[in-house]
């Protein structure tokens, strides 16, 4: 991989996609500091797992496709597996928090279903 052998617009697009994805991931990480309760904070990391990851993977697929001169779709699998596995972590975390908060009768505890 030497680079420099594809057009300027493509390079700009790759950089723009990667930067936008990184921006969403950064915003999600900021949310971990700024949001107030545990349940609110669990919303923040899904920013990097969804649009952040999608944009970075699109940038990576575009770059690899240009470098190798054929469509490279391998990275789409990363997106698929992130999408399928992230909910498991988040649901387990929120379930554990709900159980603890109800057991300790904290003020912000979720109501019974």
């Amino acid at each position, binding site marked *: 991989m030497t680079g420099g052998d594809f057009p300027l617009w493509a390079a700009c697009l790759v950089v723009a996609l990667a930067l936008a994805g990184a921006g969403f991931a950064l915003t999600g990480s*900021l949310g971990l500091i700024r949001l107030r309760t545990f349940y609110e904070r669990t*919303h923040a990391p899904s920013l990097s797992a969804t649009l952040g990851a999608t944009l970075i993977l699109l940038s990576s697929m575009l770059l690899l496709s240009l470098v190798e001169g054929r469509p490279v779709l391998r990275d789409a699998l990363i997106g698929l597996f992130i999408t399928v596995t992230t*909910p498991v972590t988040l*649901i387990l975390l929120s*379930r554990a928090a709900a159980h603890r908060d109800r057991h300790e009768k904290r003020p912000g505890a*979720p109501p019974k279903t």
Partner: protein
Amino acid sequence: MSRLLPHPILSAALAATWLLLNAPPSPGSLVLAVAAGLTIPAVMRALRPAPVRLRRPWALLRLAGLVLADMVRSNLDVARIILSPDQAGRRTGFVSIPLELRDPFGLTLLAIMLTVTPGTLWVQYDSDTGRLLLHVLDDTGDDGWVRRVKERYERPLLEIFA
């Protein structure tokens, strides 16, 4: 058919995954992809997975497009909420939603769909009462979220998973 391919969707997905990982496809990787698609579901039979019954594959594609659009929109909304200086004036809260959907695959897809749209978080599902407890970052205080989840996501899932 059912003896050789007990789970045709799983077989196709495995073969496609193999080909994607070993791109560009060559005759050798094609043979291995078919072998993976045939053997892994046969081994999986020991786990006795329930068969998936898809009624309307096109409705599933339409729903995927809808979720993709909602994912982008809710990402922008949540980014705006995180970056806004006013953190105290926002209402967040729990919403309890009575679901009619009982199919485990449908519920799995609903959990994934609600998780990939930041702003909604699946907290608990009670299979006895069929009620879902959802945490929303932007609580409107009325039944807006209940209607949204039921009409936008649950109804197409009920159509797809009979």
